[in-house]
């Protein structure tokens, strides 16, 4: 293994940070979902890097589960976005304040 695991971890942390930045700065719901996907991918990269380092394929199983859950989350979240857009005519998260948030 010529590339140390910490390089992969650093890439994963940077991806996670970019995801957080997307969620904190953008207001378009769809871009927020993309930020969540970036964070999930950063987590997956961490799982796989440690899995490689320990020589154990449990990390692969975790990453598999994360990918499947991300698919379900994207489907439900985008359906909610569609419903909100029909209701409000906008995908700006600041417009959605029916719960007084």
């Amino acid at each position, binding site marked *: 293994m010529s590339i140390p695991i910490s390089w*992969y971890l650093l890439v994963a942390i940077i991806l996670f940070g970019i995801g957080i930045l997307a969620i904190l700065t953008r*207001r378009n719901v769809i871009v927020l979902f993309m930020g969540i996907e970036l964070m999930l*991918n950063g987590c997956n990269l961490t799982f*796989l*890097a440690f899995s490689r380092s320990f020589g154990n*394929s449990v990390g692969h199983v975790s990453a598999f589960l994360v*990918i499947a859950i991300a698919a379900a989350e*994207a489907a439900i979240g985008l359906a909610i976005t*569609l419903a909100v857009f029909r209701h409000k005519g*906008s995908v700006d998260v600041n417009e959605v304040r029916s719960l007084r948030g």
Partner: protein
Amino acid sequence: MEKVLFILFAGGAILSAIAVILPVMARTPVHSALALVVTFLCLAGLYALLAAHVLAVLQILVYAGAIMVLFLFVIMLLNLGQERTGPPKRATSRVLTSAVAIALVLLLTGQIFGALGTSVGFKTNPAVMAGSTGPDQCVASCLTREVATHPKKDARKICQTECWESFGSLRSVGRTLFSDYLVPFELLSILLLIALPGALILAKKNLDLPGSSETQLSEGNES
């Protein structure tokens, strides 16, 4: 060679991830989505470098294929050309949110590399790396087979190379998934089964929520 590929994929993933979120580079959500596809493809390359071949293929199939098609489909269904958002945020709030994000990243870096036993240097803790002699379970099961035909020292060497070569293959991942992690796998199938009609019902044209039919009628018809 491996290093060149790593730098290529990691740089591509980070740069395109930045392109996803920067409003300057991605003026419409479609641009963000296309940059996100590049990120996922680069990440699939990184997974392949980590010998996770199955996950690399799944990443391309599920993320770059299915999920991104879903994203683009919704973007085009909503007809979001230019972002119709309100007035731009004040500079102070932008700086504040960026500072919070950077602080979180630094915290994560400190925690993870602290747990590895080093500072942010690129060395790895020998105590952590000592566990990486090979896939232990695989070696153990292989040894019981090979000891019969080979001397013990040779058998261990054969098994270690064999297990490292099969690491991340469909066989080894599938064996773990369908033996020790069968219950989470089945629960996941139930989750997907629930998510499918859930998404269909939520995206239906006339969403009748119980108790909110009046507001639905008055506000829903305007938009």
